């Protein structure tokens, strides 16, 4: 007899998904002007979850008008501590409805319930709590004596952390007195629409948060709308560059959180068992759909074989399958398009001579799946060492000296995250100084906190989100 874990599925009874959703404008769900809709599906089963209204430019305009009116008449006049109260209220409601958010996120996104339950949703609520506290203390945020909001902010968020990215965007915008038009990702709109219900439940004044669903054209209409004061975007570097071009010369400001190809550097004196855990969470957390993933493993050559052996043993234990099962570690790939992209870049690894390894694992027949995969024998010249795969695929490279590790880590157009694994404190500090990355984790990986600024160097983005630095992006300082 063996100790096989029986299925432990989280019940979906707690969520109540409507057959179709309208746009959330001026505090109400309204029909889009056109009749066009799109489906959002469960990527683990390919079943349609709901039909979503498609916002075209005129709908976006309506949302911006509502946001402007709410800004001018209500939100900018409200006492800061009152704004804070709304944020506290939203945070508490998110906690109360945490299970509902977690199940819905897992269904719409494909990520395991263990992650939505233990990470996405608690962190999203934490962002609202953190920023609620800032609402009446903005003079101390470091943006000058007279910090003021921009006005109406257009926010575009990705599909990898739908609710968490919403929180990263909406919480600081509201705390600083801006109003918001938010566009969730096309494949994952449902938790944003549930958040709209939370705004209603919290009695948030109409128009302070507006949510428009759609695709790239909807996002483009938002970016190009003349009455938007600031754009906050998280997504691919390609789209980010397009946004930067579109707003050049318009006076709109922007924060951009873009791609990454994070280096996870393992020195030969690292605490090896925890290093293996960190590598696993660095690349397989959220199916590797993480812009700051540790997707390039740089291992000191003298411990390479031992580390890879331990890593393979650990990866063999990853439980791939039903995202709603409480024991699942690796869920579904978010979409057919993303799966195709992962397959395409990974196959270049085979073609360019890297060695592919995946554990034996049976993938479900329906839905979009990719096994946890590592490539050894990768060099900097391989595509899989340069391009962001955004999937559960790890590229393993080696180095001989600390300087070589740093040089290779920095040898990328990106600069979002890096990890350093060593028991030597002085080496951590030395490496952190040399690494050109916005976030550097020492002896851990993929840890997030609302008080900690997050953002990138180079093609990984502009500006910071979270912490005091993140607040500054939503404030104008200086004289009135």
């Amino acid at each position: 007899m063996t100790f096989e874990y029986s299925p432990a599925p989280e019940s979906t009874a707690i969520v109540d998904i409507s057959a179709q959703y309208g746009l959330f404008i001026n505090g109400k769900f309204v029909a889009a002007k056109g009749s066009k809709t799109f489906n959002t599906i469960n990527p683990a089963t390919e079943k349609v979850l709901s039909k979503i209204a498609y916002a075209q430019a005129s709908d976006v305009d309506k949302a911006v008008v509502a946001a402007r009116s709410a800004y001018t008449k209500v939100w900018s006049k409200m006492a800061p501590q009152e704004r804070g109260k709304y944020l506290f209220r939203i945070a508490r409601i998110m906690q109360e409805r945490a299970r509902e958010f977690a199940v819905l996120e897992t269904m719409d996104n494909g990520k395991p319930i263990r992650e939505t339950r233990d990470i996405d949703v608690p962190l999203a609520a934490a962002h609202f709590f953190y920023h609620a506290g800032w609402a009446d203390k903005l003079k101390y945020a470091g943006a000058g004596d007279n910090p003021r909001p921009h006005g109406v902010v257009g926010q575009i968020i990705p599909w990898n952390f739908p609710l968490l990215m919403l929180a990263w965007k909406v919480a600081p915008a509201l705390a600083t007195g801006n109003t918001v038009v938010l566009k969730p990702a096309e494949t994952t709109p449902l938790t944003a629409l549930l958040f709209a219900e939370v705004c209603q439940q919290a009695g948030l004044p109409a128009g302070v948060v507006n949510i428009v669903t759609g695709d790239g054209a909807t996002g483009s209409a938002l970016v190009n709308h003349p009455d938007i004061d600031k754009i906050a975007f998280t997504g691919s570097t390609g789209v980010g560059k397009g946004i930067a071009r579109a707003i050049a010369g318009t006076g709109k400001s922007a924060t951009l959180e873009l791609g990454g190809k994070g280096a996870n550097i393992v020195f030969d004196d690292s605490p090896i068992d925890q290093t293996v855990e960190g590598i696993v969470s660095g690349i397989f957390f959220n199916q590797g759909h993480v812009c700051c993933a540790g997707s390039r493993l740089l291992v000191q050559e003298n411990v390479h074989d031992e580390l890879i052996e331990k890593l393979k043993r650990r990866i063999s234990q990853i439980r791939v399958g039903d995202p709603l099962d409480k024991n699942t570690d690796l869920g579904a790939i978010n979409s057919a398009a993303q799966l195709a992209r992962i397959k395409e870049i990974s196959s270049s690894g085979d073609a360019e001579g890297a060695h592919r390894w995946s554990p034996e694992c049976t993938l479900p027949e329906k839905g979009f799946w990719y096994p946890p995969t590592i490539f050894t024998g990768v060099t900097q010249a391989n595509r899989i060492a340069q391009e962001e795969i955004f999937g559960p695929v790890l590229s393993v490279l080696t180095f001989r000296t600390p300087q070589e590790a740093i040089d290779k880590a920095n040898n990328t157009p990106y600069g979002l995250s890096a990890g350093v694994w060593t028991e030597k404190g002085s080496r951590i500090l030395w490496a952190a100084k040399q690494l050109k990355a916005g976030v550097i984790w020492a002896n851990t990986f993929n840890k997030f906190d609302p008080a900690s600024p997050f953002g990138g160097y180079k093609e990984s983005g502009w500006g910071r989100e979270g912490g005091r630095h993140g607040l500054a992006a939503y404030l104008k300082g200086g004289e009135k």
Partner: protein
Amino acid sequence: MQLVEGTDSSIRRFLKQLPGVDQVGAESRAAMLGTRSIKTASKKWAIDCAISMIDLTTLEGSDTDGKVKALCTKAVHPDPTDPTVPSVGAICVYNDKVATARKHLDAIGGQSIPVAAVSTAFPSGRASLEVKKQDTLDALNSGATEIDMVIDRGAFLSGDLVKVFTEIVYIKELCGDRAHLKVILETGELVTLDNVRKASHLAMAAGADFIKTSTGKISPAATAPVVLVMLEAVRDWYEMTGIRIGVKPAGGIRTTKDAIKQLVLVRETAGEEWLTPKLFRIGASALLNDLLMQRMKLRNGNYAGPNYVTLD
């Protein structure tokens, strides 16, 4: 396989090449494994597995022959109303109660249940080597087939690793083929996870058949991160030597949930091969009744009160 000679330099060299343990990382791994959800058939299996791994223990100054006999009866048939409940892994007592336990077990059909004796001036280990040897011999001569010795934590912390090592070697020699040796590290006094890993390897190199977390007299005892690190140690030892050493968490494991978490740790750290009473034991007393109550719940669909399990 002789990995270490009993000299100071040899022991130090051996322990120095062990990788460090990052406490934050080990704690978070242990916590993550604590979220595993064990339901239905797997829960049923885990409950019986845990019962069969219990070293049913009484280590009180107030222990009497009557108390020990009652415990032995419970060990053979934990639930008198249900013969499908497995017997426990062993009975664990002080050395002067070993004969009583052995005799009673033999008399009631518990011949296959070993009697373990705590030894070497348990729990503190503060006695001369001669006293520790005599303590062990008494237990062996009374019929103990498992010896739970304590290491000298004072010697370990002061750096006298030779003393810790040679004491284990001596006690192992006495045990010979007559008894299994479990070495208690008392991790609550070693405090750091680096120390836990070092002491685990030291004990295995000196001849331990099992490494055990705690005496049960010191808190904290068998915490999840400590058990995790010890399981990693036996896994690594197996890779080095091809020999599987057992692990025994003891102290603070009181509920079915606690016990199942331990089994999850075993499965996902050392591996399924360790899920046998030959390689994993749980030192406990109150735990057994909670396992029995959960077992009844699975069978009958409702929770019975504490008066439906026996109090011994």
